[in-house]
């Protein structure tokens, strides 16, 4: 605990030897598998004590990145430093990091306690100290009373906790987590998310968390690195990623989006699509060139929906008329699927208490605020994650 506490209090102090403990820096790291580029000139700086998530679809290079930090893979180019020291050529067993593996990788021939003791035994910790620290670590994850069981006698969630204790007992500078919650059912996963976050802030250990689940990343991380094809598309906190995604890819990957494709008009502040004129805020920096192809994105939760009393007369900006073709009850929200035309549909989501009474086949009008509109160039293809409207031309 002492080392973790010191590193926490000393993060602000400049460059003494120990105070970088827990930082991870990737500098122009490249990893190839044959011809395939798994990680493409990736740079990333993780602060000591930070909870950072690498989020992306499978094959985006996030697990490869984690394995390079752990030492199971060597980068083809670039440099990785952990706690301020380069780990070039350092084997995994000499790195001050520990990993929680995707399938836990508990040793089946050892008891829970022996699994947790394994790392300490490698450091030739005295037996009495091992006993004490193993008990402590198992208390931390509330698995003390299962200490003398074999891992095969435990449920998935319990194995997950043991894997966590086995890594944390070594007090690593950095804990790497490779989709550790992937094998758990939804309810258990959400509880573990909360626990993990609490544990991390209590221990002050740097967590690098790999996941393809945006909910996991959003709920736990200090910062999220959205990865795509071996590169970081955006690195920011959850609020920024949600509200100001750097690209259409990020916008589509985190949450859902309705995309409208068309021509950029009004000095780059609006997209004229066949079914709606979508107008954003003028303050958007680096606006799109007038007349170019662009796309506008609106999240379903920002779309208002109402019965279309007036008929198809008025054509104000940020409104769209169509036919309701589906209603789904999602618990806290109601989701409406609206068909605007031959090849464009729109999703609207309203909180259940004030959701309008609509039935399939109704003529509806949808509208949204300019503040909720995001504008992107058309060549930025949000090809994965979220809802992607079919192209309009």
């Amino acid at each position, binding site marked *: 605990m002492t080392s973790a506490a010191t590193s926490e209090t000393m993060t602000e102090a400049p460059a003494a030897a120990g105070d970088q403990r827990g930082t991870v820096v990737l500098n122009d790291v490249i990893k190839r598998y044959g011809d395939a580029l798994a990680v493409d000139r990736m740079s990333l700086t993780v602060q000591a004590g930070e909870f950072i998530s690498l989020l992306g679809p499978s094959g985006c290079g996030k697990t490869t990145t984690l394995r390079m930090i*752990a*030492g*199971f893979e060597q980068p083809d180019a670039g440099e990785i430093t952990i706690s301020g020291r380069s780990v070039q050529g350092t*084997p*995994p*067993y*000499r790195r001050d*990091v*520990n*990993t929680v*593996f*995707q*399938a836990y*990788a*508990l*040793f*089946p*021939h*050892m*008891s829970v*306690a*022996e699994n947790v*003791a*394994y*790392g300490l*035994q*490698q*450091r030739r910790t005295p037996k009495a100290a*091992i*006993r004490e620290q*193993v*008990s402590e670590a*198992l208390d931390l994850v*509330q*698995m*003390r*009373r299962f*200490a*003398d*069981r074999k891992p095969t*006698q*435990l*449920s998935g*969630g*319990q194995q997950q906790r043991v894997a966590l204790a*086995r*890594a944390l007992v*070594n007090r690593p500078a950095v804990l790497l987590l490779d989709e550790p919650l992937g094998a758990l059912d939804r*309810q*258990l996963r959400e*509880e*573990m998310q909360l*626990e993990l976050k609490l544990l991390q802030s209590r221990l002050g250990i740097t967590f690098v968390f790999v996941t393809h689940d945006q909910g996991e990343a959003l709920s736990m991380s200090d910062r999220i690195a959205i990865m795509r094809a071996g590169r970081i598309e955006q690195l920011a906190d959850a609020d920024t990623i949600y509200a100001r995604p750097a690209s259409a890819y990020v916008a589509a990957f985190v949450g859902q989006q309705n995309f409208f494709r068309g021509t950029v008009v009004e000095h780059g502040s609006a997209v004229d699509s066949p079914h709606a004129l979508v107008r954003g805020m003028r303050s958007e920096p680096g606006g799109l060139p007038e007349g170019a192809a662009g796309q506008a994105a609106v999240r379903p939760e920002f779309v208002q929906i109402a019965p279309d009393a007036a008929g198809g007369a008025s054509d104000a900006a940020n409104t769209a008329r169509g036919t309701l073709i589906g209603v789904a009850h999602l618990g806290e929200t109601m989701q409406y699927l609206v068909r605007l035309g031959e090849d464009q549909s729109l999703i609207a989501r309203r909180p259940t208490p004030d959701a309008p009474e609509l039935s399939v086949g109704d003529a509806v009008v949808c509208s949204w605020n300019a503040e909720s509109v995001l504008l992107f160039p058309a060549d930025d293809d949000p090809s994965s994650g979220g809802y992607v409207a079919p192209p309009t031309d």
Partner: protein
Amino acid sequence: MRRSPGFALAVPAWAWLVIFFVAPVAMVVWFSFGYKPGIFGTHANDVLSFDRYVEALSPTFFATFQNTLWVGVAGTLLCLVIGLPVAYWMAVKAPPSRRGLLLALVMVPFWTNFLVRTIGWQVILAPEGWLSSLLQGIGLTNGPLDLLYTRGAVLLGVVYNYLPLMILPLFVAFDRVNGPLREASKDLGAGRWRTFARVTLPLARPGVIAGVLLVFIPLMGDYITATVLGGAKGNMVGQLVASQFQTAQNWALGSAMAMLLIIVIVLTVAAGALVVWIVSLPFRARHRLVLGDPPAPPSPPVPGPSDTSATPAGPRETQEVAA
């Protein structure tokens, strides 16, 4: 009677075992207590005694038993020492795309007739053979090769003939351990050797046991390898048993020898297991960690927030023990 479908599945196997294994062994046991009734009879059981066992343990035969045991133990250990690194390399280090080819190479000798490939070694090892001339030619040896008809030649033949039986189960065992478990060990600070000693080898233990038994048991009964390459020094019990049945027509003595061989095999395996158990005792004791029951909590135990949602905290423990 829910067990009947399962039992039905096992009937062919049971029938096979009873007809072709239990019954013949029972006959051998029965014969071994009898005697040879004159020149033309093979066995008779009207008087039962242990006399054939006493006869089989006479000094002449005892030396053969000793020799058989020596070849069996030394050959098995050699196969283990040679096969273990090869199997480990094939399963862990070799590129996965090559594994099929490597396995095929290990098995190629198996496709040749057992006797033929053993005689092949006789040709190679002969004092006037090409290996002998080659070694003399490059000056490694002074005289002709003096290996054939020695124990060295027998061991060489044994390793050649039985190595695949050791490598294959070891390969399968190592292959299963490969991957995340070994990475987890390294991640926790264990180097190559410690990872091997504490994770890879313990988890590959069934494969090691299978390999040792697959080599040792047939080897104890084999006499072709020893006779062809060991000559007079290659007397094995298997050969004695065969000659008692075929040449001497003394089924009673042959049966007693066969029984003694079985007993020796069982005792050796048991002794080997005991030795390994004793030798590894301090190693295992050093890493054993039993925490026992947790100290009584000051307040009623805080239920684990996740797992208690599925089952109540109390009966869970007993449930899982039962399972």
